[in-house]
């Protein structure tokens, strides 16, 4: 069950990073594309944390949104 949740998360991240980093599929992932994917995952996590924090502040300040 936890495994299913993990896979769902990966599916979502891969969806976003595929769209961000892959233009046309080629015979292998070159290093530039690999770097893009790894950075994409990490920046997407950063952005999620950033937004979650800011969102919590907003709700506290406004007593809702």
């Amino acid at each position, binding site marked *: 069950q936890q495994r299913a949740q993990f896979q769902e998360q990966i599916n979502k991240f891969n969806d*976003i*990073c595929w769209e*961000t*980093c892959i233009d046309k599929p080629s015979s292998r992932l070159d290093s530039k594309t690999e770097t*893009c994917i790894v*950075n*994409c995952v*990490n*920046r*997407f996590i*950063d*952005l*999620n944390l*950033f*937004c*979650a924090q*800011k*969102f919590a502040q*907003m*709700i506290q300040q406004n007593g809702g*949104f």
Partner: protein
Amino acid sequence: AQELLTKISEKCFKKCITKPSSSLDSSEQKCIAMCMDRYMDSWNLVSKAYSSRIQ
């Protein structure tokens, strides 16, 4: 609220991070903060317009 936060993350990633690099640089952070504020402004505006329409 969780769903809204998920939407914000996806929308603002698309608007602000076109070439993911080794960290969020300051212009990306600024873009994300603005994007989030505008998304909430838009959400509140939609909510008001929808409410007044269906009453």
